[in-house]
C-alpha cells in the first residue's frame, strides 16, 4: 500500500452528502428516546439521587459524616474537585488548541468534548462549595462589597481557584455556545410547525440560534469570533490546572510543596480528559451511527495523545522522587518514600500501574486501534488519575511533619455516595445533551468532508481519480 502524500488524508470516512450529515447528526433529537436511553438515564438519575441524599445528610449533620479527620483535612471532596476539573481539560484543548493548530481530525469530536468540559466543570464547581464546613456562608469566598468591610484574601490559592474555575467555565461556555449557533439554526430550519412539540422546539432553537441566517457576512464574523475565542481559551487550558495545582504547591506540606506541580497537573488533566472523551465517544459513535465521522483514525490520534501525556505524568512521578531525594530534606524524602511504601502504597501502585504502565500498550498500533482494548485502557487511566489525586491529597496530609499527629484516612459511605452522585450528575447532563443538541458540529463536519473545500485536485480527489 502506497501512502498518498500529496494531500491531507480525509478525516471523514466515505463521502456523505450534506443532507446525510444533517440527518445522521440530528437524528437523536428528532426521535422519541428509546428504551436504552431511559435505562441509561434511570441509572444516572439513581446515582445522582444517591449523591443528593449523601450531600443532604452532610448538610444537615455536618462534615463529620465524611472520612476527613484531624491531619487529613481534605478528602474525597477535594480529590473529586481536582479530578473533575482535570476531566474538563480535554474539551477546550481539543476545540481551541487543536483548532489553532489546524488539526482537522478534531472536528468530529470537538463539540462533544466541549460539552463534557462544561459538564465536568459544573461538576467540579460543586465541590469547593460543599466541602466547606459552613456551605451557607460560601458566599464569603467571593469579593463583594459588604457592610462589614470584609474582603477576601488574595494570597490564598483557594481564592485563585474561585477565579480560575469561574473564568474557565465562562469562556468555555461562550466558546461552546458560539460554535453551536449555526447548528441551532440548522435545527430550527429543519423543524416545521406541524405539531405542538415541533413548534416548541422550533421556538427554542430559534431563540438559541440568535437569528443566524447562514449569510457570508455571518460566517465571516463567526470564523473570526471563533478564532479569537480559541486564542482566548488556549491559555486558560493551561492556567486552570496550574492554579488548581497551586492549592497544593503553595502550601508547606511535604509532597505538596513542589514546583513541578503546574505542568504535571496540566499534563495529568489532559491525560484524564482525553481518556474520558475517548470512552464516551466510543459509545456515542456506536449508538448514534457516527462511525464515519468519529473515525477509528480519530480515536487512534487521541490514543497517541494519551500516551504522550501519560509519559509526561510518568516522568513527573519519577522526577518528584528524584527531587525529594536531591533536596536532602528528610521530611520531603520521607513523604515520597511513604507514598510508595507507606500505608497508602496500595493507592500509589494503583496509580502507577494505571497511569504509567497501562498506556504503554498504545505503542502497538494493533492495540491502539482495537476499540474494546483502548476503552479498557482509558477507563484504567481515569481510575489511575483519580487515585493520583487521592495519593497527593491524602498521603501527604496523613503523615506530615510531626509523627505524633499522623493518622490514617478512611472514607465513609457518604464520601462514596457523593462521588457516585458526581458521576450521576455528569452523565445525566451528558445524556440530556445528546438528546437536545447536536453532539457533532454539523457545520464544521460539512466543511471537512472531501470536496467541501476548494482544491487544486478538483472534486473527487480522495479516490485518486484526479491525477
Amino acid at each position, binding site marked *: 500500500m502506497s501512502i498518498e502524500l500529496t494531500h491531507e488524508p480525509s478525516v471523514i470516512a466515505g463521502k456523505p452528502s450534506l443532507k446525510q450529515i444533517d440527518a445522521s447528526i440530528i437524528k437523536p433529537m428528532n426521535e422519541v428516546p428509546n428504551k436504552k436511553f431511559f435505562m441509561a438515564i434511570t441509572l444516572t438519575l439513581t446515582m445522582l439521587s444517591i449523591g443528593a441524599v449523601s450531600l443532604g445528610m452532610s448538610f444537615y*449533620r*455536618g*462534615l*463529620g459524616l465524611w*472520612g*476527613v*479527620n*484531624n*491531619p487529613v*483535612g*481534605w478528602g474525597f471532596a477535594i480529590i473529586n474537585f481536582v479530578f473533575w476539573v482535570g476531566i474538563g481539560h480535554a474539551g477546550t484543548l481539543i476545540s481551541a488548541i487543536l483548532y489553532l493548530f489546524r488539526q482537522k481530525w478534531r472536528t468530529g469530536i470537538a463539540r462533544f468534548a466541549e460539552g463534557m468540559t462544561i459538564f465536568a466543570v459544573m461538576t467540579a464547581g460543586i465541590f469547593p462549595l460543599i*466541602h*466547606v*464546613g*459552613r456551605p451557607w*456562608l*460560601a458566599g*464569603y*469566598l467571593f469579593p463583594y462589597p459588604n457592610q462589614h468591610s*470584609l*474582603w*477576601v*484574601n488574595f*494570597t*490564598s*490559592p*483557594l*481564592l485563585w481557584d*474561585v477565579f480560575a474555575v469561574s473564568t474557565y467555565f465562562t469562556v468555555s461556555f461562550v466558546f461552546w455556545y458560539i460554535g453551536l449557533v449555526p447548528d441551532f439554526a440548522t435545527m430550527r430550519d429543519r423543524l416545521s410547525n406541524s405539531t405542538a412539540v415541533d413548534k416548541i422546539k422550533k421556538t427554542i432553537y430559534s431563540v438559541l440560534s440568535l437569528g443566524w441566517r447562514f449569510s457570508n457576512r455571518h460566517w465571516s464574523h463567526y470564523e473570526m469570533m471563533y478564532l479569537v475565542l480559541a486564542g482566548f481559551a488556549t491559555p486558560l487550558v493551561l492556567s486552570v490546572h496550574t492554579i488548581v495545582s497551586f*492549592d497544593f504547591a*503553595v*502550601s*508547606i*506540606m511535604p509532597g505538596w510543596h513542589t514546583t513541578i506541580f503546574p505542568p504535571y497537573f496540566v499534563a495529568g488533566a489532559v491525560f484524564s480528559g482525553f481518556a474520558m472523551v475517548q470512552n464516551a465517544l466510543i459509545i456515542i459513535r456506536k449508538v448514534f451511527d457516527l462511525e464515519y465521522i468519529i473515525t477509528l483514525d480519530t480515536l487512534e490520534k487521541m490514543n497517541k495523545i494519551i500516551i504522550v501525556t501519560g509519559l509526561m505524568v510518568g516522568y513527573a512521578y519519577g522526577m518528584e522522587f528524584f527531587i525529594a531525594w536531591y533536596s536532602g*530534606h*528528610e*521530611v520531603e524524602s*520521607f513523604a515520597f*518514600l511513604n507514598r510508595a*511504601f*507507606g*500505608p497508602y502504597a496500595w493507592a500509589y501502585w494503583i496509580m502507577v500501574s494505571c497511569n504509567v504502565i497501562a498506556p504503554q500498550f498504545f505503542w502497538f498500533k494493533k492495540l491502539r486501534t482495537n476499540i474494546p482494548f483502548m476503552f479498557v485502557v482509558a477507563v484504567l487511566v481515569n481510575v489511575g488519575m483519580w487515585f493520583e489525586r487521592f495519593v497527593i491529597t491524602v498521603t501527604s*496530609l496523613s503523615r*506530615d*511533619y*510531626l*509523627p*505524633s*499527629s*499522623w*493518622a*490514617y484516612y*478512611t472514607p465513609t459511605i457518604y464520601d462514596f455516595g457523593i462521588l457516585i452522585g458526581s458521576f450521576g450528575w455528569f452523565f445525566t447532563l451528558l445524556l440530556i445533551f445528546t438528546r437536545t443538541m447536536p453532539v457533532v458540529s454539523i457545520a464544521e463536519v460539512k466543511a471537512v468532508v472531501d470536496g467541501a473545500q476548494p482544491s487544486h485536485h478538483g472534486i473527487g480527489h480522495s479516490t485518486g481519480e484526479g491525477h
Partner: protein
Amino acid sequence: MTNSKPKFWKSLNQYNQKPESVEATHHEFVNGVTDEFDVNALPDKSRRKFLALLGASSALAATACSDYYDKGEIITYNKKPETITYGEANYYASTLNNGAGVLVKTREGRPIKIDGNPEHPIGKGKVSAGDQAVIMDLYDPSRLRYPIKKSDSKLVLYKDEMPRSDWEKVDTQIVGKLKEAANSGKEIAIVTHSILSPTQNKLLIDFAAKYPTAKVYSYELLNESEKISAWFDSYGSYDLPSTKWDSADIIVSFECDFLGTEGNVTEQIRQFSSRRDMDMPEKFNKLYQVEGNYSLTGAMADYRLRLTPELHYGFIMSLASEIVKKGKNAYLGSDLSVLSGYSLQQFADQNKLNKKFIDELAHDILAHSDKTLVVAGSSMPNSVHVAVNLLNEVLGSVNNVYDFSRANKTQRALSTNDELKSLVNKMKGGNVGVLIHFDSNPVFHLPSDLGYKDAYQKVPTIISLVESANESCQANQYIIPINHALESWNDFELRSGYYSLQQPVIAPIHDTRQKEAALLNWMSDNVTGYSHDLYHKYLMSNWEISVYPLSGSVADFRSFWFAALHDGVAVIKAGQTEKPAFNISALNSNPFKFAKQNYTLLLGAAYYIGDGRFANNGWLQEVPHPVTKSVWDNYAMMSPATAKELDVKFGEDKLNREADMVEVTVSGRSLKLPVLIQPGMADNFISVELGYGRTSIGDVGKDVGFDATALMSINGGITSRLYTGVSVKKAEGIHHLVTTQEHHSLDEEFVKDFHLKRHIINEYTVPFYLDFNKKYDEAKRRLKAEFAGDEVAFKKALKSEKIHLLGHHEYKNHSITPDRVYTDVKWGMAIDLNKCTACGTCVTACNVENNIPVVGKEEASKGREMHWMRIDTYFSGTPEDPVTSFQPMLCQHCDNAPCENVCPVVATTHSPDGLNQMTYNRCVGTRYCANNCPYKVRRYNFFDFRNDFADGYYRQDTLELMHNPEVTVRSRGVMEKCTFCTQRIQEARTSAAKDGRKIKGTDVKTACQEACPASAITFGDMNDPESPLSKLREHPLGYHVLETISVKPNVTYLSRLRNTVTEEKHGEH
C-alpha cells in the same frame, strides 16, 4: 353665606362660595384620597392594595419567624449584689473532697474554673487534672435533683421518670427506721470512703452516740494500707511522714507511679521538677525506676529497669546487702543477718538484669547514700515496704527525705478485710437494720467475692447519700441527693496541722443537701426543721473547740475563722517529732513468699477518673492516657513479647486500633478485656486499670471500659491489687481501642526515631551539658573580645558556636521579604521539657478555660478530639527498653504562620502583639489552614459537638451554666485552636489601662501555665529583655520545633537533659 366673599380666592367657584367648593376647602386633599383606608374597598388592581398586602404579609412573615438569638430571657439584677460585678470574676478559696486546696473562679455567681489555692501549703497553687475537671461534675445533668424512695430495682435512676419523694416524708421515715434499728439492737452500718475531715469524723462519732448500734465501715479501692501497715510494723506509728521529694538526689522507685497516680501527685511533681532546673544541672536529681508496668514515672525515669514485681523484694534486699558490704551502712541497729542471704551481683546474674543499670544504681546510691530516697508503690505488699524502710535506714537517708513534723494524717483507719467480711455476714444474717452508703459505692468498689452485692439487698432499709445514682443504688432504698463539693461546707486535714476549709461557692443547684447535714438532721429531734446551715454551724463550733485553741491565734474566734475561710486553710505550727526507731524484726514477721508463676497481674490506678467516681466526667475520659494515649477505655497492657506468646494483636489497622480480646483469670474469677501492647512492660506481666466499667452512672460514663474489680479478691493475692499465678488466654472477638496518637513500631526502620531526626525532640545528657556549658562560657568570653561592641555580630557568632557545640547543623533561612517588626508587647511561650512530666493537667485546664467540648469515643477514634493543647509521646530505643520523650504541643503562633496566607476569607490573621488569631464568625471551614499547619494543632468542628456528643449532652440545662463567658462557644464547621488565652490578655490589658500603666508580659498567665504543677510553662512578653520569657528564649537549650521550615514559631522548647552518664546524645544522628 353670600355676604362674606373671601378676600383671597383660588377659583371663581370659591369666590362665588359654591357649596361644593366650600366643602372642599375643609379637606386638604381631593375627595377619595383621604378616605379611611379599607383594603376591601379598594379596586382589585390597585397600587395601594398591592403595597398594603405586600407590607402586611412581610410584617406577618417577619413576626412569625422567631429570632434565633432569642434563646430565653436575660434579666439584669434589679438590685446589684454587693460582691458581684458583671464581667468580673470572684475567687473563693475552698477545698475539694480529696483535700486539694483550690481557688474557685466564679462569674455572676457561677463557678467556672478551679485552680490551686496558692496559700495552700501542700498544693501551693496547683491542683491535678482531675481537680480541674471537677467543675463538670457540679453541672453534670445526671446529678440527682430530689430525694427518691425507690421500690423498683429496675428503674433508670437519673432520668425524669424517677419516683419523686419529698424531704419531710423521707426524713421522718428514715428517722423512724434508725430509731427502730437502734431500739431493736440491729446494726446501723455506715459505709464510707476514707475519712479525710476531722469534723466529719466527729460527726460520725456523734451519730454513733445518738444511735448506739451505728458502726462506720470505711474502705478505699486505691488505698495505701500495705504501706501504712508496713510503716507501723517498722516504726510503730500509723502516721506516714510526708516525703521531701526535693531533698533526694537519687530516687529509686519500685513500681511507684508517684508522678502519675500515687500519693499527692501535684506536690510530688512540683518537688521532683524543682530538682530539674536546667540552670543548675549539677543539682539534677536522678530517678531510677524499677517496675513491671510501664508507668508515667517509668517513662520519666533516667534509668529504668523492667522487672516483674515478685523480684522487687529480692532486689531491695540485695541492694541493702551491697551497701552493707561496701561499708556504708548507716543503720545503727544491731543485727543485719536478714541480709546475709543476698548479694547484688548474684541477684543480677540470676535474673539477667541489665548490668549497666545495676552498676550505675549501686554507684549512685553509694555516692549519695544519705540523699537517696527509696519508695515502693502502694500495690506492693507490706514486706516490700518494710524492706524499703530497711534500705532507707541502711542508706541513712530517712531523716533527710522524710518530714516527720508533717505526718500524713489518718482520721480514721480503713476497715480491715475481716471487718468488711463481718459486715457482709451480718447483712446476710439479718443483723443489719439500716445500711447507709455515705457517698460511697461499695457494690462497684468492693471485690466481688466478698458477696456485698447479694448481701446488701437483704438489709431492710438502705439509704444511699449520693450525687448521682450508682451501682449501689440498685436495691429498694432511699436515695438522698447530696451537695457537690462546691456547694458544701467541710474541713480537711490531710497532713497534721494543715486544716483546710471547704466553703460553698454556689447555692445548691438542685434540691439537694449536704451529706453531713442530712445525718445531723436525722440526729436532731426536730426532723422537719432542716436548715441549710446545720453543718456550717456544727463545723464552726467544732473549730472553735478543737482547731482554734491549737492555732494560738491572738484574735477572737470569728476573726480566726474568717481569716481561715479567706485563705482556705489554717496552718497550725508543727511540733517537732523525732524519727522513731526502726524495728528490724518487722522483716521477719511478714516475709515475702511469692514466686513468679504463670502471669502476674497488676490492677493499677486510672490516671484521670480516680476509682471510677469521675467516670461520668467526659473531660477526664478524654484526656489521653499519658503513656498509651488511649481514651475512653481500659485494657490489659502487656509487652510485645507477651502478646506474641499469647498470639494477640493490637493496632494493626492504623488509627482505629482493633485490639484482640484476652480472658484474664485469677483463681476462678475472670474478665474478658482488650489488649494494648505497650513496649517496656515486663514479660508475662499484665496490668489493668481500675475504675472503668461503670454500669450505673450517667450517659457519659456508662459502659466505658471493663470492670477490673471483678478480678479482685477480698483475701488478696500478693496484695489486693497484685496477683500472681494468673492465667491469660486469647478470647473471641475484637474491641476498638481509641488512641489519640498512632504508635509507630519501634523497630520499623522506615519511621524509627523521626522525632529525633526531625529535631522535634532535642535531648542531651547532664554530663554533656556540663561540658557544653564550660565550652560555651569560654566561647562567650572569646567572642565578646573578638566582636567588642558589636552586639549583633557577637550574638550571631555565639549562636553559630552554640549550634556547633551542641552538634547540630547550622542552616540559613532566606526570606525575600523583610521580617515584620513588633515594637510593642509580643507574646511568646517557653516550655521546659526538663520540668514537664506529661501529667496532662494543662490539657484539662485548657479544656475548662476555653469551653472545649468532649467529642466522645467514636469521634476520638476518627482523630477529631478538640484539645487545643496535647501532649505528644515519642518512643525511641528498643521495644524492650524504650526511651520516652514527651512534648506539650499547642499553637505555636508562628511569625510566618502558614495557616494565615492560605485562608481564602481572612478568618485567621496576625495581631499586632504577635498572636495568631481566629475569627470564628468569618470562618467558612475550608480546613486549608489545618492542612497547612506543620504542627497540626488546629482543631475543626466536624459536627456541632454540643449537639452531637451523647445525644445533646451539652444542651442539657445545667451544663450550659458551666461555660466560660469570656470564650466564644464554637459551632459546627468552624476551625479553632489555642489563642494563648487571649481573653486573659484582654483582661490584663483592660486592668492595665484602668490603672493607667502599660501592660507587662508577666501580667498574664495562660490557663495551662497557671495549672502546670511543675511550672514548666512560661508566658510573657518577648520584647521585654528583662522578662523571664526572654531569658528562656535566649537560653542555649532553647529550640523551636521544625526550625528548618522557617515558620518562626513563638513557643520555645527547652531541651530535656537526661541525668544519665551515657555519652549518646539524643537529638543527634
